[in-house]
């Protein structure tokens, strides 16, 4: 996915290729076709006039209209993807409740994982001046419907991974809540963190920048995206 001249680590390049390959196949609740459609739908959100109008409104609920889309996904899912892509800082519990009246929480988690993974890959490509990579070619196959019945209510909108918590020397639990967030669908969790992991570490970051520089970048991203976590 990346030209050889860029100083990117091999494990990152391998992780991105693996994520693209995984998204192309059937997930637990979506077909490969639908998962690739999720990538395309997230991309088209960036040029959607309705999303632009909503992003600039005082409240996301203050405007009405229709998304510009070629997606074959349910309109509620298209709206979900466009909002996560273009206005993630103003997602709310009541909005989530509306969405999950139409799709299951398991489908929701899988879509979040695909969107967020593709955001990482597309963002890095664009930032390096490469333009986004071609979407993967979907593979046939049926979703196997596998979720995690042991997921627990941890105060999030969705059930999260159950873990025995211990404190790490980072001052955080050994498994921070964010690493549990997609635990309702283990393959979704694996997809996202397989993509994310080569980019960052809580300590001894394996990059040429210092931990403090990495945290400063991370904190600025969180502030711009209005992320509380």
């Amino acid at each position, binding site marked *: 996915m990346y030209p050889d001249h860029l*100083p*990117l680590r091999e494990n990152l390049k391998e992780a991105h290729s693996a994520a693209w390959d995984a998204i192309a196949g059937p997930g637990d609740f979506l077909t490969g076709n639908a998962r690739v459609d999720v990538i395309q739908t997230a991309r088209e959100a*960036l040029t959607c006039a309705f999303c632009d109008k909503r992003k600039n409104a005082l*409240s996301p*609920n203050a405007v009405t209209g229709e998304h510009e889309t070629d997606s074959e996904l349910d309109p509620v899912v298209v709206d979900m993807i466009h909002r996560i892509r273009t206005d*993630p*800082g103003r*997602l*709310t519990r*009541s*909005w*989530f409740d509306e969405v999950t009246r139409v799709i299951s929480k398991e489908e929701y*988690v899988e879509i*979040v994982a695909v*969107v*967020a*993974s593709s*955001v*990482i890959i597309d*963002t*890095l490509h*664009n*930032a*390096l*001046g490469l333009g986004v990579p071609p979407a993967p070619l979907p593979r046939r196959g049926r979703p196997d419907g596998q979720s995690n019945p042991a997921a627990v209510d*941890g105060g*999030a*909108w*969705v059930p*999260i991974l159950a873990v025995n918590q211990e*404190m790490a020397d980072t*001052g*955080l639990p050994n498994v921070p*809540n*964010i690493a549990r*967030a*997609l635990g309702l669908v283990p393959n979704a969790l694996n997809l*996202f963190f397989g993509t*994310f992991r080569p*980019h*960052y570490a809580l300590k001894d970051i394996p*990059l*040429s*920048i210092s*931990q*403090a*520089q*990495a*945290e*400063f*970048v*991370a*904190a*600025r*991203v*969180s502030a*711009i*995206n209005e*992320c*509380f976590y």
Partner: protein
Amino acid sequence: MLLRASGEQTDKTYDLNSVTSENLDSGVEHGDWLRKLTEATIRGDWLTVGEVRPQAEVEMGTQKVVDALTVASAFNGITRVADATGIPLDSTTAEATTEMRDTTGIQQFDYGAKTERYG
């Protein structure tokens, strides 16, 4: 909030308000370049990224610029996971950062507050 922990581990002082205030010096080495690269990247301003990247490479080196963009792209994804799942702060973080969240303005991003604000 991990920037605070980094400062504690290295005995350096970082201005946490620089995270939410654009005109403050963070105290982080090459903080201005990191800020410019990050902001243009997360706002999807690829023209500006293309202008800033080679300048930053002269000051920081290509590898560090690429690695900064690597971190920025990762957090552009993971913030969406957090925001779309309403994941709560870890209890130790919540307890240790109450005052800091208020002074930096991060508390306004609390998921409960957003629901009250936007419905």
